[in-house]
């Protein structure tokens, strides 16, 4: 970074300024779940809440999808308890959620109903309210179905779709909204019929979509690919026995120009690449994803010529047994990658210090099935939930539905508490997001010990940090 060349400012003065900046560096820190958008306001210290976007289950409680709030601050008298449950009316195939960049609102989607629920989490972060429901997603987007990922951009939200209303297959688009729900644009994924200017680097240009992440410093955005409505709403066992259905999974990831929203390069990535997690360190120009059906860790990276490439870098478990890797989470120092495998219910920790050679160093069975993970910025706390999709979750006794809170000491996970979502008559636990009083300038309603530095409300600042 050459400040002098671009500003023409007095060199000596600037050197003092920079020295001062680094002197001041110790005053500021940024912390957050490690999988969130770099555009987003950051939490410093201990999170107070985990919001769990939960699928309603038939014959369980009120049977509705709901946003469940769990108190996760050890200093709170309500630690480990469900402190709020906000039902949204009916079942929508509740799936993923994401904050706006100011963390004032939490957007949560229904893959079947195509409804998007926008929750106000800033007026009272302990008791979210439903601010707005978007029920014309398919119409305004021009036929996109299955709102999946909600990814914060500056003052805007990028919503990935999974399907379309023409054939309910996997061809889809990203849909861009303002933070308050104004539709802005639809960005269709490139296909063989319309590459939209993108380079097809391999055999596939399927137009499928799933997750989205960005590296603003490289003006890069990445998407992955899953399957369409017909498959994700089908019974899992039935689908596995249907050879035609099994052909309808995404085999691509795409590198986009973040600023222009144009696709630039399509990578072959066979077997449904799902969650994307980009490295945080300033010179780490790469992102990981994992393929659900082929059980591999993939790396998308910028080579020495500045060209973006993709490469399979490790197996996850025994791919022949299809452990079905689902959610992943990168540590804030980019040295570790948690990979959850749904079928065997295991959390697996990979050392990714060398991103081209990930090594699994730890695994633990969390439950009969396992999907999502959220970890704190310092990596000392990790939360897990169980549900994948209503028709894909296991049956009978194997359909455990839980939220589990662990601490990670660097070598093993230690269970702190758990919430049985069936016993509590809540439903199937899915996506988790963190909340905190301090984000909104609020004091916690209980005393915290000063020694508990990470539990002090004043440690949580509203600040957006550069990526």
């Amino acid at each position: 970074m050459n400040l002098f060349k671009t500003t023409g400012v007095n060199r000596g003065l600037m050197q003092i300024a920079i020295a001062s900046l680094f002197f001041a560096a110790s005053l500021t820190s940024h912390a957050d779940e490690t999988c969130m958008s770099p555009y987003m306001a950051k939490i410093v210290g201990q999170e107070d809440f985990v919001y769990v976007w939960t699928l309603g289950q038939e014959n369980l409680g009120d049977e509705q999808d709901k946003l469940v709030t769990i108190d996760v601050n050890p200093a709170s008298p309500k630690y480990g308890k469900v402190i709020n449950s906000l039902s949204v009316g009916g079942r929508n195939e509740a799936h993923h959620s994401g904050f706006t960049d100011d963390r004032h609102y939490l957007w949560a989607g229904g893959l079947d109903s195509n409804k998007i629920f926008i929750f106000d989490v800033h007026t009272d972060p302990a008791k979210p309210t439903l601010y707005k429901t978007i029920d014309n997603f398919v119409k305004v987007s021009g036929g996109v179905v299955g709102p999946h990922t909600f990814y914060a951009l500056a003052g805007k939200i990028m919503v990935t779709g999974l399907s379309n209303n023409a054939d309910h297959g996997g061809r889809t688009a990203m849909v861009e909204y303002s933070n308050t729900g104004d539709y802005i644009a639809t960005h269709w994924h490139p296909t063989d019929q319309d590459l939209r200017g993108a380079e097809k680097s391999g055999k596939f240009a399927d137009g499928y979509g799933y997750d989205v992440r960005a590296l603003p410093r490289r003006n890069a955005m990445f998407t992955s690919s899953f399957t369409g409505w017909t498959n994700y709403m089908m019974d899992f066992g039935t689908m596995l026995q249907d050879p035609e259905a099994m052909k309808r999974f995404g085999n691509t990831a795409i590198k986009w120009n973040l600023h222009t929203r144009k696709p630039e390069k399509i990578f072959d990535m066979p077997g449904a690449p799902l969650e994307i997690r980009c490295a945080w360190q300033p010179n780490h120009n790469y992102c990981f994803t994992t393929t659900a059906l082929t059980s591999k860790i993939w790396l998308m990276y910028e080579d020495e010529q500045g060209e973006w490439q993709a490469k399979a870098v490790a197996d996850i478990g025994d791919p022949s047994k299809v452990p079905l890797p689902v959610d992943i989470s990168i540590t804030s120092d980019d040295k570790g990658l948690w990979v959850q495998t749904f079928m065997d219910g295991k959390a697996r920790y990979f050392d990714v210090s060398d991103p081209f050679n990930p090594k699994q160093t730890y695994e633990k069975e969390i439950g009969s099935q396992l999907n999502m993970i959220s970890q704190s910025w310092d990596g000392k706390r990790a939360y897990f939930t169980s549900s994948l999709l209503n028709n894909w979750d296991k049956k009978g006794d194997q359909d455990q539905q839980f939220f589990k809170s662990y601490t990670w000491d660097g070598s093993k996970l230690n269970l702190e508490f758990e919430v049985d979502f069936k016993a509590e008559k809540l439903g199937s636990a899915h996506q988790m997001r963190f909340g905190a009083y301090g984000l909104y300038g609020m004091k916690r309603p209980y005393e915290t010990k000063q020694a508990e530095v990470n539990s002090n409300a004043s440690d949580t600042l509203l600040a957006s940090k550069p990526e």
Partner: protein
Amino acid sequence: MNDLVCNLAKFYTRLIGSLLFLALSPYAGAQNSNEIRLAPGWGQLSFTAPKPGTYELPPIRAAAGGSILNSQGQSLDLNDLLGEKITVLSFIYRTCDDVNGCPLSTMVSYKVADRVKKQPLLKDNLRLLTLSFDPQFDTPDVMQEWGEDLKQSSQADWQFLTSKSEQEIRPILKAYQQSVIADDAASNNERNTFSHILRVYLIDREKQIRNIYNVSFLHPDILVNDVLTLIQEEAQAEQRSTAKANLADTVD
């Protein structure tokens, strides 16, 4: 250019003072030790900004107005300053000491203003608005002096604005979803401090917000190219309109 350097130097002098103030404050001991990371806007862009006119900037929503004061102390509506030119609106407070907050925003505006000399197209088509949300200390006189320091030899249309009171600026901040939280513990008789998300807004002549920038993507190269993209868009719309009128005349 010497004047610009001098003015920028004054700006940095204040910044350094602010940083030292923060470093010596009681907050110093309460924070974790992570290195600060300068925002991309402070340096050279690490990629080539997309060329103007090669992309679209779809309207996001209507820009809002509200009661403000200019640096002469005159009351006016923010809405009155929109529409005449493509506008870049920044919300700041003058004593902000988060290097990746208001100082970044002001530095980017400064660099954009400097480019007006090199790109005359910007002079007639671009207005920079720097609006304070700290009316207690950022009075019109203060904004006037600060603005003159920064833009003295610049030919840019760069206006420094404030408001009569917190009650008057609040609705504007809310309309722009500009989150600002006053830090009561740090306020004193000399300065206020606020926690806020850095937001800069690009507003077209139809008073529509066309882009929003934050710390990760605010850079003069990007901002200028976005402005030029809107100028090209206007020119193309004008050409289409003229062609349509000519066609109508021919048919008549």
